[in-house]
């Protein structure tokens, strides 16, 4: 219950920051996608099932307040969470290089999927333009936030695990 409450607050705060503060921190017209880092971090820490559920709700929040089709970002978040949880389950969680490289790879693929499913069919066939103007700068900017946000998630997760330990033993 504590976990659900904390994660809900995290999703809300992240969304509000992304919509209000991050546009002021834009570099070259792009903003970092902190939501994807949170989903990847949580999936690495807690595995595919919880990663998938968390990713689904992070995406759903973006869908509901973004005012486009509902389910698109939820689907992307779900798949990212599920896919990142499985292979990294047995990795050492204090290793901060792993999330950094995973964020670079996943963020790049994630932006490509958004490009193909939104802009490409509406006259934006100039792939290299988008690669240069949005996809690459955003991947780099997002990757620069990967380590601090992973550290935050790691901290929150370890606190929850300590608090919940007695409950699990019962």
């Amino acid at each position, binding site marked *: 219950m504590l976990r659900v409450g904390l994660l809900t607050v995290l999703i809300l705060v992240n969304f509000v*920051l*992304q919509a209000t*503060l991050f546009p002021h921190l834009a570099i070259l017209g792009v903003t970092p996608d902190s*939501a994807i880092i949170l989903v990847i971090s949580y999936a690495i820490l807690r595995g595919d*099932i919880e990663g998938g559920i968390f990713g689904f709700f992070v995406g759903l929040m*973006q869908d509901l307040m973004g005012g486009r*089709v*509902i389910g698109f970002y939820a*689907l992307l978040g779900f798949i990212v969470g599920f896919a990142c949880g499985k292979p990294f389950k047995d990795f050492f969680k204090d290793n901060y290089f792993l999330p950094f490289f995973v964020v670079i790879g996943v963020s790049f693929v994630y932006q490509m999927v958004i490009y193909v499913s939104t*802009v490409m069919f509406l006259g934006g066939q100039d792939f290299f333009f988008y690669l240069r103007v949005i996809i690459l700068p955003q991947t780099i900017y997002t990757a620069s936030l990967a380590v601090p946000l992973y550290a935050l998630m790691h901290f929150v997760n370890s606190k929850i695990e300590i608090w919940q330990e007695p409950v699990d033993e019962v």
Partner: protein
Amino acid sequence: MIEFLENHRRAFLLTGIGICIIAIIATISPGTGTNILSSGLSYVVTPMQRGLSSSITWVQGHFSALTNNQNLITQNRELQEEIHRLQFENDRLSLAAEENAILSDALNMHRRYAHLPTMGARVIAADPSDWHRSFTIDRGTSDGIAVNMPIIANGGLVGITRYTTPLSARFVSVLDYRFVTRVISPRTEDIGTARGDPTLMHQGLMRIDHLEATAQIIPGDEIVTSPCSYLFPSGLRLGEVISVHTTPDGLARYAIIRPTADISNMEVVLVITEGM
């Protein structure tokens, strides 16, 4: 619960994907102005965005006041001069408007540029995705905002409301690729279709398609909404022509325009609430 799901991974994956795809299919039709989930969520998110956006404006204001004192004094002087100039212009124009009203009545003509009631609103959030240019304002259906209301700022059209919740509304800006409207150049009477373009969006520009091959439009020409547009009142200023090009097949021309309002730095906008 989690253990159960861990034993049924494949079913979990397929159910998750299935739920999302059903949701996408159910909501893909355009014109859905509002939904219950978004409305409920807006009661939590909008006050947070309002608060944070006010704090950011406050911090920015104080920071720039400390660093740009001299700039502010100069700017203030320039604005004072601008006020005098505009006041003079306004007096002159109101005389012209009166004269116009009398002559229009005499000729029994329909008023082309009627008075439009507006409502002020603050821009509190932007689209988190870099692929779109839409913004959230702090007025919603409880203030009388509905879908498809034009938004203006700095005397120019900046967008149109697309989705509403009780406390907030989201508008698609003129730079977004989902924005389309019929426009006209008052000088040459050339008609075209203005649209947001994903490749021009980052430079703050948009384009006009479907101009006749014989169009007389040149850089510097003003572009306003056409009387053919069914979403906007006619005569709303949209922007200024930057360049004009001929399509590769030579059958039509297109123009690149710069919107009058600075889309990336909007703090306060006006919603045109009636008049269509």
